[in-house]
């Protein structure tokens, strides 16, 4: 058996909150969030979202990501169906101060990458101890 065999992670539907006007399911994307000395990086799986349909909003400490999947036309009759197309929506509360002007977002192979650089004040400061 391989070290890690990939299994399907069933998509989780958004339960409450702002209901969509579009009759289309909305899912919670799986994310990785990691912090380095200078930035907070967020990766979100959003297959089917084109680059121009991604919406990122930072309102005080509330970060909202939204991805819209264009309507997918299934051709012919369905034989087998393991997933449903839908939009993505997720909200986070950020703890550290972010330098808003320098946020970078990119999307590659359906994975959103958001780099949120920390504001100068939030960066750890090294204090040099001088020996006398």
């Amino acid at each position, binding site marked *: 058996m391989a070290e*890690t065999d990939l299994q399907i992670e069933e998509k989780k539907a958004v339960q409450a909150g702002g209901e969509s006007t579009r009759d289309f399911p909305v899912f919670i994307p799986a994310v*990785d969030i*990691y912090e380095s000395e200078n930035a907070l990086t967020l990766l979100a799986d959003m297959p089917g979202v*084109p680059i121009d349909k991604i919406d990122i909003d930072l309102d005080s400490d509330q970060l909202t990501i939204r991805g819209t999947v264009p309507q997918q036309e299934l051709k012919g009759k369905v034989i087998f169906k*393991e997933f449903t197309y839908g939009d993505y929506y997720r909200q986070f509360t950020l703890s550290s101060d972010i330098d808003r002007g320098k946020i970078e977002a990119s999307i590659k192979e*359906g994975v959103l990458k958001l780099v949120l650089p920390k504001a100068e004040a939030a960066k750890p400061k090294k204090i040099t101890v001088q020996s006398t």
Partner: protein
Amino acid sequence: MAIFRYPNWRWPDLPGAMEDFERARRQMDRLLSVFSGGTETAASSGVFPPLIVTEDEDKIYVEAEIPGIKAEDLEISVVGRTLTLSGERKPEEAQEVNYHRRERKWGSFRKALTLPEDVNAEAVKAECKDGLLKLVLPKPEHVKPRKITINGQ
């Protein structure tokens, strides 16, 4: 005191036991959601990637969600009626970072599917865009339904 990291811990002499539990859990969930009047859930095989297979008179269409997989890390083959998708989802290389959340999965995968009809393997088209894979598998002439015209006298 010995400290074990949970993800590395395995059932001794029971390979695949956790996968079996996981499959049983999924089936229970599906059953319960049907009983409680939930929406239609896909009858999932549990093997990555999730697929949608549709067909019309001339073609079979296969769509898969494969976020984060580069085209070169994906292998698609058609042998007879068996379509096989295999590849690897690689983790992002990040060094000296603290993970706050780690929900995205990685690893290798292999999924084989028996197609409902013969296909012309030479003419299969594959397109990978925004983390979606779309395959078009044309049916050969002999399996296409033929219209028979009735000659009146």
